[in-house]
Each structure stands twice: as C-alpha cells, then as structure tokens.
C-alpha cells in the first residue's frame, strides 16, 4: 500500500532538442538520433491535452523544460494554452531564443519562476561549453528581457572542466542582472539518460574536484549537510524514497510518464492510456527498493549522496554502484577527517 499519491508537481520536457550543444547536458538528443531511434516528440495538441488531464488529476505546479523549450515553433501556443489552465508555471530556458514574440506571450502570461541556465561569463567559455560563442551575447540579451517580467528569476549554472575557472565571473554576471536574482549551481553532473548524446565522463570534474568545488573553502558546510541529512525525518522507503511518483512526475519529450528526469526506465504511457491511469499504474513499474549488499557495510555511507535515480543515471540500474559517487563519499570522508583534526570532534556532536 502506498500513501495517498497526488501528482502535484509535474515536469513537461517539451523537447529533447536544443540550439546549444552543452557538453554536460543530461537530456539533449538531436533530430537525427530521434529519427534513427524511431521516436518522436509530442505534438502541440498532445502537450495541451496532457496538461488538461494532469490538471484534472491535481497537478498544481508545472515545470516546462527541455532541451530548450523555446526551440519548438509552437512554444508560444503550447505555453499560452497551458498557462490559462491555472498552473503555477516554472519555465527553464537558456535565454538565447527570447524573441519579441516570446516576450509578448510572457508579458501577458508571466511564469512564477524562470530558471535560466548560464554556463560562462564570456563568448570563449560559451564556445567551449555550449559550442557557440555567439550564444553568450544572445543569452545576455535574453536575460535582460526576461528580468523585465514580474517572475522570479533563478540563474542556474553547471560547472565542468571548461568553466570551473570562470565560476566566480559567472556568479558576478548573474548578480549583475539584478538584485533579486537568485543563483544556484548543480550539485553533480550526471551521465545522460534516455538517449542523451552528451559525453559527460569526458567533461565533468573528477569526484574529488567536484567535492572541492562544492564545498571549497567551506568545509564546515560538508558537516552541516551531513547533519541535515541525518536529522530529517526518516524517509519512507516507498518507490524511490522521495516525492518522485508520490507527488511528482515527469512527462518525457517522447510522451512517457516517469518518476524524475534522471530515470530512463519504469514508465507508463499517458498517450495511450490517459494521464490518470498512467499515474495510477506507475507504481507497478517500479521495483521494490532493497538494501544494496555492497553499500550496507560501506564505511563511507554517511557521506554517500546516491539516490536510486542517481544510481540509475550512473549505472543504468537502481541497484548499481555509482563509482563517481563512491569516490565522492570516500573523498568527503577524507576531508572531513582533516577538518576534525584541525577543529576537533565537536562538528560531529549533532550528527
């Protein structure tokens, strides 16, 4: 038996395509690959129908993302129709395709929040990370337009080898767009899922570099994160152990209902069976989570950030050992030990 499930938070991956070619993208699939796989993106009508059905089933917040959603020629039509249904809309974009037509629509129908991905502070970094130097100028122009909306703006970055040296500048650039703008960075760059074509292993930081980057000079934050992790109410072990499939869902660019964007299996088909039934039967697709033998006695498990979806991304199995995360955990343990040796064991007090 599962607790009451309500699909409150939805994600619509309106497209897998993107005008940029970011080296670390989780989702991007190009047109040729889509055709060669015999797959297709949903039509305008299919997205609007799915939104209507999700609304009937109780979806309140809806994230519209991609790929780059504004790349779709029918973006304005889909967006306007969905907006009128009364969702709390969040829109993710790279801000390089913010045309006057798009702005007309967004001015009439401003989303609650716009998440803008920014991966560099100059054209040269954009060329390296996203495959287009000009995209930098288009992004700056786009962000300036989007910040005129009443929506809250969150600038999001992802750090890989090519832009780690530019991180502070990216932060400064983000803040230069406005005082109220929030800034966030991805915790981890995962391997791609669902036919994504990015070569993540070639571009992401090593696990040790990633921990150094995430915690940097703020080693105390690592201990605080651990404290937070172990003082939150114990999560129920239903489905994936989080909200995925309990209160949230993703409709993939090719129309499947899955738990979260990281996953590439355990899906139902809302196009053929309708959203309500696809949501109801979703639980039947997910195998029961079990303790993973090799993890049970791991001395670094306190430091392990793996969740079933991350395990899936990294190993294509919910029960695989994600070596990248294992190395992160081992390294976190090492630096925390170093911290204890200089600051004393009081940082463990509340753990």
């Amino acid at each position, binding site marked *: 038996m599962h607790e009451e499930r309500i699909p409150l938070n939805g994600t619509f991956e309106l497209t897998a395509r993107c005008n940029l070619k970011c080296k670390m993208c989780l989702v991007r699939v190009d047109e040729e690959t889509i055709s060669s796989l015999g797959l297709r993106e949903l039509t305008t009508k299919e997205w609007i129908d799915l939104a209507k059905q999700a609304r009937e089933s109780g979806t309140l917040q809806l994230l519209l993302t991609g790929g780059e959603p504004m790349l779709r020629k029918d973006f304005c039509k889909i967006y306007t129709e969905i907006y009128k249904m009364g969702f*709390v809309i969040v829109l993710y974009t790279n801000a390089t395709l913010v045309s006057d037509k798009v702005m007309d629509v967004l001015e009439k129908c401003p989303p*609650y929040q716009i998440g803008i991905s920014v991966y560099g502070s100059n054209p040269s970094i954009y060329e390296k990370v996203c495959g287009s130097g000009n995209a930098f100028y288009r992004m700056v122009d786009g962000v300036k337009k989007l910040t005129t909306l009443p929506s809250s703006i969150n600038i999001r970055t992802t750090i890989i080898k090519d832009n780690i040296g530019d991180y502070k500048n990216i932060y400064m650039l983000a803040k230069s767009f406005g005082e109220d703008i929030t800034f966030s960075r991805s915790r981890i760059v995962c391997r791609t899922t669902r036919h994504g074509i990015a070569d993540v292993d070639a571009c992401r930081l090593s696990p040790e570099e990633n921990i150094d980057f995430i915690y940097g000079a703020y080693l105390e934050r690592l201990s605080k994160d651990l404290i937070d992790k172990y003082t939150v109410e114990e999560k129920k072990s239903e489905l994936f152990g989080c909200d995925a499939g309990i209160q949230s869902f993703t409709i993939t660019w090719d129309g499947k209902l899955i738990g979260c964007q990281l996953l590439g299996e355990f899906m139902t088909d809302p196009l053929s069976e309708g959203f309500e039934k696809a949501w109801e039967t979703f639980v039947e697709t997910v195998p029961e989570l079990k303790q993973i033998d090799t993890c049970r006695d791991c001395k670094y498990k306190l430091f392990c950030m793996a969740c079933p979806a991350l395990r899936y991304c990294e190993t294509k199995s919910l029960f695989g050992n994600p070596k990248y995360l294992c190395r992160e955990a081992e390294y976190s343990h090492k630096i925390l030990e170093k911290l204890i040796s200089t600051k004393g064991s009081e940082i463990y007090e509340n753990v």
Partner: protein
Amino acid sequence: MRVNQNFVLRKIKGANIIVPLGEAIKKANGIMVLNETGAYIFEALQEEKDFEELVSCIMVEYGVPLDVAKSDTSDFLEELRTYGILMEEE
C-alpha cells in the same frame, strides 16, 4: 464587485487553491488556500454582485443570521482586496 479574472480557483483533493496569473503574480506573492466558505464567495463573485447580494447568498447557502454573514463576508472581502483579488468600481 467581482473577482479579478487573473486569479483561478483550483480544487485539488478537497483543497481550494487560488492561483494568481498574469500581472497578479506580482501582488499576490504565491498561491492561497481558501476554506469552503471562501471558495464559495470566490465562485459567487465570478459574476458582478454588490455586498448585499453576496450577503444574501451566504445566508441562504449557510443558514447564518444577517449580522454573522455581514461580518464574515466583510472580513473576507478585505483579505481579497489586500491581494488584489477583488475588482470594484470606483
């Protein structure tokens, strides 16, 4: 008076949730949850009504005396005004 059409009432598993849209997202500062009476008033004000008409509707719907209906309605309308949900002719 009537409710601003930039606010949509969503009924989700027994909860009455007001979602602001368009320009309303600036002033409303997020979603609001209404009780049953609030949702009834919100729906009643989809069409233009004056205060007396609204109070009469509430007396009939909930079987409450005039003074209670007036006082509760007045309080709730004030709240709607605060968030820009109520549209009134000057």
